[in-house]
């Protein structure tokens, strides 16, 4: 008997597995470990619970926590209140221009919250706010009277809600579209009227989606830095995130900051668990499959009033803010009305040619975006592949590691990374590396989810078929798997890139003057009150974002369903 020309089974995939597992561990465990350690030590390095004691007793810390909670609850409730009718109208009725409304929701989804906050400064600052000027003119109010004040707890909650309601909307719209019409028909046949059916059948089916979406909105509000930093600080109150940030200002109180970050982590973990439980129970909605598309309810006379309502809602997150930014970008002075005589290239010129920070920030953002997106996509692909093909023992733990950062809010990650990388052996603070580490960690879950979904739909046998005809594993990957995943790869890369452009919560703690990125420059300019220049930059940021989204959506989607059966997708 001749010996087979052999390859041993433990091959490079095992090595790759080890490296990536280690890498992912380091990304999450290291910052959280330091965070934990710092929270229970003092400046001298001695063990202490003083940080937590101060957290529980110091009014300067207690008040921001209370404010944060109020803002998070209020904005989440508001987001749900607005998203529910909107999602129902778009998903289940014949309200006109549903596609356009959805596009507007997507726009508010990708608008960086800090940009929205700045736009609302333009709109609703007590004195100069455009809406207040209109109100004075309309109602003949005095020169210093105002209708709206965005620099309040209400203002912050409102502004956050504007950019978190898409979380509720998306989950709910999906749930509504997944309810087959016959489920509701079945109730009607059994004698349930429209109202009874809605209350007894539809509502229980969509309730988990509403709650889950609201929880996400709550978490976002809880951990957001940009909006409160822009709207709360000027009028002298803090949220927990801005407080943590201020603890890093001179003299830095890193131990207290670490302790203050832990509640955010704890609440996030709890809420995510709750959300998973809620969505896990939702699975019964899918049982029975999509037998019939949901029935669109005819609004008849109410069609246009309903559309007006949608438009009214969408004024707040998108239409008004974008208009305000546009106006601020093109008029000479902020107070000028929009007219031919007041138009000016001043701000564009300033941003492009005079302001020294622009070029550096743009270069940095581009470099960070490209590097982070590439790394995340590559790692997500390898992890997804190893896990879905069960190539190595212990593969189950890779997805868990890749998804772990989802439980770590940006600002918490920022604190942790700051602690790790400002001291030997890894002194990365002040370099772009620390930002790359931050972005890769924070964006890994989103990237991995994309890849995993795609790999699940890709039958293993497609690859095996190529092996049996003589392709090596690498050839099969290159000739079969890679082309089939092309769309996913591009989409994943783009999602991460967009995510990097809008990140501020972790970035703000980790940048130095040499490593500024656009989001930080915008934040800095806001402190200097240069709203014209901000508007130009913000609009540029939005333009790039929309261009990427459009390009990804236009990608030719290959006309197939994995498994070789079925008709072209388009």
């Amino acid at each position, binding site marked *: 008997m*001749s010996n087979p020309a052999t390859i041993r089974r433990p091959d490079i995939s095992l090595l790759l597995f080890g490296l990536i597992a280690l890498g992912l561990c380091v990304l999450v465990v290291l910052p959280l470990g330091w965070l934990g350690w710092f929270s229970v030590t003092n400046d001298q390095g001695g063990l202490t619970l003083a940080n937590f004691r101060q957290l529980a007793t110091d009014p300067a810390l207690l008040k921001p926590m209370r404010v944060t909670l109020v803002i998070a609850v209020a904005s989440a409730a508001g987001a749900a209140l607005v998203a529910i009718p909107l999602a129902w109208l778009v998903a289940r009725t014949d309200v006109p221009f549903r596609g356009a409304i959805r596009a507007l929701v997507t726009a508010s989804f990708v608008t960086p919250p800090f940009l929205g906050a700045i736009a609302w400064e333009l709109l609703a600052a007590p004195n100069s706010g455009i809406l207040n000027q209109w109100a004075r003119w309309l109602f003949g109010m005095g020169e210093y009277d105002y209708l709206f004040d965005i620099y309040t707890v209400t203002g912050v909650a409102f502004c956050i809600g504007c950019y978190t309601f898409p979380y509720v909307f998306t989950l709910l719209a999906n749930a509504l579209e997944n309810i087959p019409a016959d489920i509701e028909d079945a109730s009607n046949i059994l004698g349930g009227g429209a109202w009874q059916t809605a209350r007894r059948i539809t509502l229980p089916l969509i309730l988990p989606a509403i709650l889950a979406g609201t929880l996400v909105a709550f978490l976002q509000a809880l951990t957001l830095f940009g909006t409160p930093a822009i709207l709360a600080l000027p009028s002298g109150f803090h949220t927990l995130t801005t407080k943590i940030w201020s603890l890093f200002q001179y003299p830095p109180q890193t131990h207290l900051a670490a302790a203050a970050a832990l509640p955010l982590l704890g609440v996030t973990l709890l809420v995510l668990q709750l959300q998973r439980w809620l969505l896990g129970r939702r699975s019964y909605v899918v049982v029975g499959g999509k037998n019939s598309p949901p029935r669109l309810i005819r609004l008849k006379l109410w069609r246009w009033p309903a559309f007006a309502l949608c438009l009214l809602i969408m004024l707040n997150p998108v239409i008004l803010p974008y208009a305000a930014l546009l106006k601020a970008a093109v008029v000479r002075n902020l107070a000028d009305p929009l007219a031919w005589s007041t138009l000016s290239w001043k701000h564009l010129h300033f941003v492009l040619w005079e302001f020294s920070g622009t070029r550096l920030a743009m270069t940095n953002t581009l470099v960070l975006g490209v590097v982070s997106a590439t790394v995340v996509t590559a790692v997500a692909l390898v992890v997804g592949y190893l896990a879905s093909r069960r190539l190595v023992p212990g593969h189950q733990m890779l997805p868990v590691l890749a998804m772990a950062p989802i439980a770590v809010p940006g600002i918490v990650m920022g604190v942790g990374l700051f602690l790790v990388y400002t001291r030997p052996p890894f002194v990365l603070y002040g370099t772009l590396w620390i930002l790359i580490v931050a972005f890769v960690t924070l964006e890994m879950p989103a990237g991995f989810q994309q890849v995993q979904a795609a790999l699940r739909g890709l039958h293993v046998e497609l690859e095996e078929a190529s092996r049996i*005809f003589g392709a090596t594993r690498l050839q099969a990957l290159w000739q079969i798997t890679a082309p089939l995943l092309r769309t996913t790869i591009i989409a994943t890369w783009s999602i991460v890139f967009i995510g990097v452009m809008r990140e501020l919560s972790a970035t703000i703690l980790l940048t130095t003057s040499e490593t500024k990125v656009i989001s930080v420059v915008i934040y800095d300019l806001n402190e200097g009150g240069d709203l014209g220049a901000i508007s130009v930059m913000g609009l540029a940021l939005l333009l790039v974002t929309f261009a990427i989204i459009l390009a990804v959506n236009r990608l030719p989607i290959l006309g197939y369903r994995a498994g070789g059966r079925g008709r072209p997708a388009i």
Partner: protein
Amino acid sequence: MATVELQGVRKAYGALTVADGIDLSIGHGELVCLLGPSGCGKTTALRLIAGFIAPDAGAIVVGGRTLSDARATLPPERRNMSMIFQSYALWPHMTVAENIAYGLRLRLRRQPAAEVAAKVARILAVTQLEALRARYPGELSGGQQQRVALARALVVEPETLLLDEPLSNLDTNLREEMRFEIRRLHDAFRYTTVYVTHDQLEAMTTADRIVVMNTGRIEQVGSPEDVYLRPQSEFVARFIGGTNILHGTVDGGVARCGPMTVAWGQGAAAAGQTAISVRPHEVELSTDPAEGENAFSGTVMRHTYLGAQRDYLLDMGGDITLRAVTPLDTVLPVGAAVGVRLPRRHCRALPR
């Protein structure tokens, strides 16, 4: 020459043993069917032969060369085999012609493109796919996809062809057609073929030999006639064709099964416990009490009209029921007492 031999092949996933010491020798140019219920390890056996998975123990020898054993496994791309997958696994981003040419390009690296084109054209003609050569798999019907998978697997002229339930996604008519097509192509090209199915009719009509599998073990190997007429175990008798099984104890050349005493005409009983198999259509029914050897009386519990036949369920007393399939003219009402005769030469004693 490509004989395929499995020597004591064993494979387990954790505590679950999926291949439990499989010994099988397949001759050159033979078409062998692996037949068994879902989850019995057929696909696993096929993937072991293909080299996608490595055995825990035992060896796989093809053409005298050990390709797999517990220490090492030759990767599938170097086995000169071909496979039709249960999902067809047509590459959705390649046209029909590209799908078919893929394997040729990999295997005939030094051959001119003209030769590849000629071979593709020939197989397209054989499988009647010329008109579809520029289509993508997503634009084909199930049967057409199946033919593409067949063409793709055959064009490389493999020494060994592996098929994993290739017809399970087709409707009944198309399935019958393709069954004969597969056999015809096999007879024309004479490669060694291992064909996995859980459909006994498919196995009966295509195979030279049938390998009946159960829970990772081979129950019986034999020609279609062998496994049907001479089952070696209760499992095989039940799985191939369906049968009545009477459990009993051997007592002086007859089996005592509850109230019935049955004499058998074929097979061999183990000492002590035994099982007697008698096919439903061998059971003879009459309105008069039956007489002589293996004659009993029973009551009709259920009657089903099958079109060309009638299907009766009989209560034989002592918790024993029998099924009988009879000609149309045997008409018996439910509840009637009937004479039942089990002809001795059709009663088979099973050793297991």
